[in-house]
């Protein structure tokens, strides 16, 4: 829901229902990184109501477009986070497997060494 003025579409307040700090703070952060934005802020009118108001004021561009761009950017950042995280996890798991294999081989080698040192079998 957008509350703005018909004459000046560079200033608007967006009301999101069923949202809270989780999304609002993240969107606010991305919004403030945009150089076109002069005011990027959010408030929660009452904690018992699940609703968030995000205020966007820009240097001329329509607030709706700027807000949409911010959401798109947020989605891209999330995808990036996911890919970096997945890569880090697969690398870690591969490293763990390598270490386990090395440890198992070392154990096997030690067992063979002790086995060959058995005097009675010679």
């Amino acid at each position, binding site marked *: 829901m957008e509350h703005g003025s018909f004459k000046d579409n560079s200033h608007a307040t967006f009301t999101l229902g069923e949202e809270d700090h989780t999304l609002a703070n993240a969107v606010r952060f991305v919004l403030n*990184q945009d150089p076109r934005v002069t005011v990027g802020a959010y408030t929660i009118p009452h904690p018992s109501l699940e609703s968030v108001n995000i205020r966007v004021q820009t240097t001329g561009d329509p607030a709706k477009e700027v807000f949409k761009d911010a959401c798109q950017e947020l989605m891209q950042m999330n995808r990036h986070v996911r890919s970096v995280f997945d890569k880090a996890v697969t690398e870690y798991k591969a490293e763990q497997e390598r270490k386990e294999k090395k440890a198992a081989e070392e154990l096997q080698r030690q067992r063979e060494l002790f086995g060959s040192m058995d005097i009675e079998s010679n």
Partner: protein
Amino acid sequence: MATKEEKRFAKNFNINDLPDVPTGLPPHLQQTRVVSKSNPLTANASYVPSMGESVKLGNFYENFKVDVISLTERDMEFDMIGIDAAFANAFRRILIAELPTMAIEKVLIANNTSVIIDEVLAHRMGLIPIAADPRLFEYLSENDQPNEKNTIVFKLHVKCAKNKTRQQVLTSDLKWLPNGSELLKESGGSTSKPKTYTSFSCSQDSLPEFANNPITPSDLQILIAKLAPGQEIELEAHAVKGIGKTHAKWSPVATAWYRMHPKVDLLGEVEDELAERLVKICPKVFDIEDMGKGKKRAIVAQPRKCTMSKECIRDDDLIELVDLGSVKNHFIFNIESTGSLPPDVLFTEAVKILEAKCETVLKEL
């Protein structure tokens, strides 16, 4: 009636002029007051509302790094470097409150002669973590019929025999019923086939994920109730999908938290006796470095282990030499899963959920 002299006396009276009134704190109290030189408001200010100085978008894609420190089936510790606190908090909030899980919602009690009353027993059943991937199930809303796609049915039937001692009812006594509910609904005297409380069209056993992999609670040693000889519990429990926001039983993490990486700097040379003292106060973080010729120096060996107890700046001499703070944009994340999904999958799902939220907002605009 106050006389003129009395009024004048009251106006000019100053309690500090009396001979017995002390002017400051007595000496034994003065020395123990520790005054921190740093401003408490900004000293550990990790999140400073910035005009672009903490994380710039362009740099984000280049600088963002993730380092996995440890990863087991239940716990995970990893570092996220180059991200803003708004994101770290968003992920933490989603992990705790908005990731779906399966948990017992309806408990149909046929017989309960134990000392645990029905509602308390049902509450405890709800809190039992269930090792089932919630992505394989759908939500059950009010108008839906419980079927094999949105419900998991468990049965609990334990009786303590008369000649035995007190018996424990553990989660290992919960039996999974892949064919759905076995309790019959009372029909109005009709002669058709009796209906049960769920309508499973096919057995959950036949699904590939559960074929040789029965659904059980994540931990089989959780104590549900205790039975004395002669007591019996017979009930059926239906588990459905939900999120932590509705009720904490649906939270997939024991907890998830993050802390900022500590920044411990020595502002000057800490030598010999002072170095020994510093290392004695906090051996976790500081260490002695021998410089030869009997001289010793303190160095910051493991800043990661700092717990921000501020013991090192209690001392008058050390307070000027140690600078304590947090590294902005470096978050040490811990995720403890309750067993439904491994922690790395949980985090990936949390990020997906944040993406989905953005999509919903974009669609409405």
